[in-house]
């Protein structure tokens, strides 16, 4: 069994999520990878060094340079013959492209896989993670995306795979790339941030809530809030994390002065690492926090900043 993994890359480097996808693919069989887009040649060089990669396919022909779904799906479908599985990390890119490729192959795709049981059977979240479904595919070929956080990425060095050029089938150009605009804001968006710092009613007032900003700056974090803080008028509603607000799953979630009502937990419990700072040792947030610190957050905040500045 050989698996084809579509990689995401940036400035010639393979994204970490795609290295996790390779780790997931390794559980299924031999791994070939495909790189497309501008910089495909540079990315192919980087991909060749990834441990566990048997062969690198590089489509540097220009047709798929903008990585639009139409040509890339056609390319994937044209390469599919030798593969039992076509796989990618669950990125916006892959979610755009893989289902289209699956349609061309008459396959039902399996998105957001968190666990590989066997070649046909996978675990994936449904209902925004409220339930986990184990599904078995009867398709002869599988098309899937995997959740990067569920698989430890392979290293960036250690392999030496051959690179082979492939060409994208001719495209009818009914879909044209116009441009991209990357977020300029200093503060990442709440739902896609790698780190989120959230404040609760413990922040006491609108002025004090701003004290979270220096910490967030140091961590490159988005700022969120509990419903209590929103209700109390400290911040606008679009800061709200929770059942009635935004659902976030960053790598690091820092809850400052949030008691941890279940409605709030519903919005952040899938975060990889949760830190809670609260003066009440009985606060329910500590029941789910990986690291808890009992204390006055107005003392903890400057101390945290100082520590981050120190060794950073």
């Amino acid at each position, binding site marked *: 069994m050989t698996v084809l993994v579509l990689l995401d890359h940036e400035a010639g480097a393979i994204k970490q999520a795609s290295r996790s996808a390779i780790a997931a693919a390794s559980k299924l069989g031999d791994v070939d990878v495909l790189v497309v887009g501008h910089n495909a040649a540079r990315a192919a060089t980087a991909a060749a060094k990834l441990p566990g990669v048997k062969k690198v396919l590089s489509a540097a022909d220009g047709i798929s340079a903008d990585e639009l779904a139409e040509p890339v799906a056609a390319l994937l479908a044209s390469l599919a013959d030798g593969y039992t599985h076509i796989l990618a990390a669950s990125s916006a890119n892959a979610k755009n492209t893989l289902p289209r490729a699956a349609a061309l192959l008459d396959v039902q795709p399996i998105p957001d896989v968190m666990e590989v049981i066997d070649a046909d059977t996978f675990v994936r979240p449904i209902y925004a993670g409220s339930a986990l479904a184990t599904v078995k595919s009867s398709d002869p070929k599988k098309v899937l995306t995997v959740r990067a956080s569920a698989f430890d990425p392979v290293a960036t060095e250690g392999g030496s795979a051959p690179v082979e050029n492939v060409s994208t089938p001719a495209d009818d150009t009914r879909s044209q790339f116009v441009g991209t605009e990357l977020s300029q804001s200093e503060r990442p968006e709440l739902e896609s941030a790698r780190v989120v710092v959230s404040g609760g009613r413990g922040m006491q007032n609108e002025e004090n809530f701003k004290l979270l900003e220096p910490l967030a700056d140091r961590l490159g974090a988005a700022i969120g809030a509990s419903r209590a803080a929103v*209700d*109390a008028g400290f911040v606008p509603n679009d800061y709200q994390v929770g059942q*009635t607000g935004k659902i976030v799953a960053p790598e690091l979630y820092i809850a400052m002065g949030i008691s941890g*009502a279940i409605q709030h937990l*519903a919005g952040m419990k899938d975060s990889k690492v949760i830190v809670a700072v609260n003066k009440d040792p009985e606060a329910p947030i500590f029941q789910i926090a990986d690291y808890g610190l009992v204390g006055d957050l107005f003392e903890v905040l400057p101390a945290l900043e100082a520590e981050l500045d120190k060794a950073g």
Partner: protein
Amino acid sequence: MSENPREIMEFDVVIIGGGPSGLATAIRLRQLAPDTSVCLIEKGSEIGAHILSGAVIEPRALDELLPHWRDSGAPLNTPVSEEHMLYLTQTRGYRVPMLDRVMPHMRNHGNYIASLGEVCRWLATQAEAMGVEIYPGFAGAEVLTENGRVVGVATGDMGIGRDGKPGDNYAPGMELRAKYTIFAEGCRGSLTKQVMQMYNLRKGVDPQTYGLGIKELWEIPAELHRPGLVQHSFGWPLDDRTYGGAWMYHFGENLVSYGFVVGLDYPNTWLSPFDEMQRVKLHPSFRPYFEGGRRLSYGGRALSEGGLQSIPRLTFPGGMLVGDTAGFLNVPKIKGTHTAMKSGMLAAEAVAEAFLTNRVEPGSYTRRIRESWLWDELRGVRNIRPAFARFGMKGGALYSGIDAMLLRGRAPWTLHTRHADNETLEPASISPKIDYPQPDGKVTFDKLSSVFLSNTNHEEDQPVHLKVRSMSMWKTVNWDVFRSPESRYCPAAVYEVVDEETNPTLQINAQNCVHCKTCDIKDPTQNIDWVTPEGSGGPNYPGGM
């Protein structure tokens, strides 16, 4: 929003509320007068979403309304097979012997354990099939009157921001005009409250008195499930001055309806109905059923307990009151579904007649009620609940035994309710504090995780629908004298005191509200006014609830 003209739609009859009484009214109307146009609105997101009841249902009214209900998929599938009334002490439960003689109202043979929400969903399908137009998700917000006559209701505006100004998706309410408007809002209806004032409907009757029922739906291991089991309790943990008790019904597929009712005339300001409800589950008479089970849903709702003496005038020009908003619940039976439905059916008959004679006020409704079994039933039990208020829990139980066995409900006297529930609270300084156990997260739970299971939600950007008339009154009365009883009686953690030590302030978490109406009833100075929030807000009780 007078600059934004509302659309108008005319019907023969408009019904406010999609519970058993409103649906029975609608069905009966179409049976009697198939050409009558009937529009029913419901503030819940769907029929059944706001329905909360035990429920052991006596099928008497249903037999009369839809005699073939058994063959048309009515969700009444668990007949009562076994029943106990327990008197609890802290550690033991004693079964009341000869239950059917001492408490004949509690005889449940022939009754069914069911989810009243499911029953209502089924009734709604029947009604729609008969041509009733049903619109869930729209709250009646305003009573329309013309020349002293109620001519319909207006639904609430949608898309009003918290600041009271129309937002981008503002949609004005709609006027639903009708020859007759029927208020079927359930206990303490917010429009009913206005109509009662407009027409002075409560003149000469006892104040209404209420209970608060808090319920959980459980799924328990099959080996512990005894379909048809009905178990009630009284005694512990309530003191003698507080009316109430627990219920537990086994029904459906491993489902258990568990709940607790507290009479809202309770005096102790420290009492927390929610915590009483939680701790009874720890009693040896209840606990074994919950071990290893899974809690599925949660909710709360006030119910009328005043009985016959508290029933207001039922009709007014252009409309009438049906079901529990009028107060037709039979308290000793702890049942109101059959009476609610019966009242709706009688209202429909009165309306059908009023159409023929073109009467402004469908007055024959009152006569029809008085001539029906509904009246006989309420008359027979009229003294029991007031006896508990007057003689305490033990004295009341004794009285009700005597009333049942010797007087057989035909006592030549009538006991009266003397105080409204908001007048009975005693100051915090003289009320004994109650020490409630911490939730264990397995059998007992905290309030917020409970509210979570009611699936309640309100569009965030809308005015707070719990109107506190005066915050300074809250401070001087609710806080200084009673130490914020609302933070304890509210089963949904809507009311919260912040900055308790420095500057006690009332925080209103309106989004949590499960529409039980207790605050509207129990606030000592009637300082809290419950008005309908944007339509489809509130709990979303699932099937089984």
